[in-house]
């Protein structure tokens, strides 16, 4: 039963991801991205990690792609025109590279010997994740707050030029 669901939803996710790349209009790309992330969240559910799955929906589909969609809407993009002449070459190259890369991966996967380290953290529910986060990975967790501080400052820096222009105009 689980395999069937996995098959269905992984095909769904891959098709949605393809839709992101193939769409002519940016807004359809964003919408396909929503579907791809949603499919990914369902795949996480199938593996039993419900917390990560909910976080995926909350953060990715609920915040990040919304920002993408905002930008696309504010930019008022038009449907892209196709360049007929330049299509076959890149397409053939893309197809060849995808084929080659998948052969490589398949070959590698077939010959891999998987090693189970004894230190694998079996943390899939919230309690164990949070325990790990606050004990073993505490330093990494705290550094990210420093990083976020610098990111907020950089967002202000990037937005400042427009603000200064508008102030100068007034």
């Amino acid at each position, binding site marked *: 039963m689980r395999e069937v669901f996995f098959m269905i939803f992984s095909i769904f996710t891959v098709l949605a991801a393809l839709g992101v790349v193939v769409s002519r209009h940016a807004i359809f790309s964003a*919408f396909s991205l929503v579907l791809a992330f949603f499919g990914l969240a369902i795949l996480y559910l199938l593996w039993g990690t419900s917390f990560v799955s909910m976080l995926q*929906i909350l953060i990715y589909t609920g915040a990040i792609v*919304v920002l993408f969609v905002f930008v696309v*809407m504010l930019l008022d993009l038009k449907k892209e025109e196709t360049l007929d002449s330049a299509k076959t070459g890149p397409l053939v190259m893309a197809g060849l590279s995808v084929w080659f890369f998948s052969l490589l991966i398949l070959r590698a996967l077939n010959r891999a010997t998987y090693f189970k380290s004894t230190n694998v953290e079996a943390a899939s529910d919230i309690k164990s994740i949070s325990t790990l986060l606050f004990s073993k990975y505490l330093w990494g967790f705290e550094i990210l707050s420093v990083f976020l501080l610098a990111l907020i400052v950089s967002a202000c820096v990037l937005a400042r030029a427009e603000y200064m222009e508008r102030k100068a105009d007034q």
Partner: protein
Amino acid sequence: MDLTELSIVSIKTLLIYVAFIQVVPVMIWVERKGAALIQDRPGPNRVGPFGVFQPIADALKFLFKEDPVPKEVNRLLYNLGPFLILLPSSLIIAAIPVGDRVELFGRDILLQVADIDVALLFFLSISSLGVYGILFGGWASNNKYSLLGAMRSSSQVISYEIPIALSAANAVMFYGTFSLRQMVMQQEGVLLGFLPNWGIWFQPIGFLVLFVALFAETNRLPFDLPESEAELVGGYHTEYGSMKFAAFFMAEYINLATASALLVTLFFGGWHVPWLSDSWLLLKLGSQNVVALVQVAMFLAKISVLLCIFVWVRWTVPRFRFDQLMHLAWGNLIPLGLANIIVTAILLYFFEGR
């Protein structure tokens, strides 16, 4: 997962879902009659006694009205908008505990579509998906005013998601679990001898933050700038007619119902009868199923009270301006929510026994 279990779950889902959808026609009537009461006028009184059949009349109107589609719209997204906004509203219903168990066919059936162990997080994530219906609906209408309304509405919704998350975090810290059913189970009985054992006594500020933020999430006055009739005609649902508009309408009311359900579950004891514990009820009433009926009735009563409060606030308070709205979220509710979390953490640390 054998056939009986599958059929039980399907029937349960259907029943609970349909029950929640019934809120829509009831709310239509309550809203209009409530508005009339507050504004000192009769309200709908043509269609049936006290206008009770007004929702039916509205539904028939929506069914038979023409569905005008503007010319240059993005077909796919225009048609997808109402669907996208109904989807999250319907999904959230899955997490809400309507009552305790029922014993039928020799099994214990929980009166909740799915007892998810991360139910509160599920609620947060799925409600954040509601933004897409608004955004795509507004943008696909090929109408600048709709786009503006959509932008305003979505920025409002995502801004107010943060106070909701902070309040939810507060509740999680206090109850020690993400599961809504567990939260309700902890609110049974009596507190200090005379108060019902509700969450609101322990987290008043959390309730305040959540209450205000849920008004904004559901686009209700005083936060309904996106749909303000005077300024933007209809905001993001201007270009939609008949059933598609009805879909937006339905989504708003179902959102309202689920928001009230969340408030009841977190702060008002869920499906417990105040002051009475479940075991006492079982003793007095004999059968578990009768107790379950009483509990469901209690839940509905509590939701109804909250819905009436929503309607009451809507017709009493004037609308916020957009910058006031944003300032309320970022400048007032978020610091309040954060301070609340800190205070709760400190208090929990000191009263570890509770």
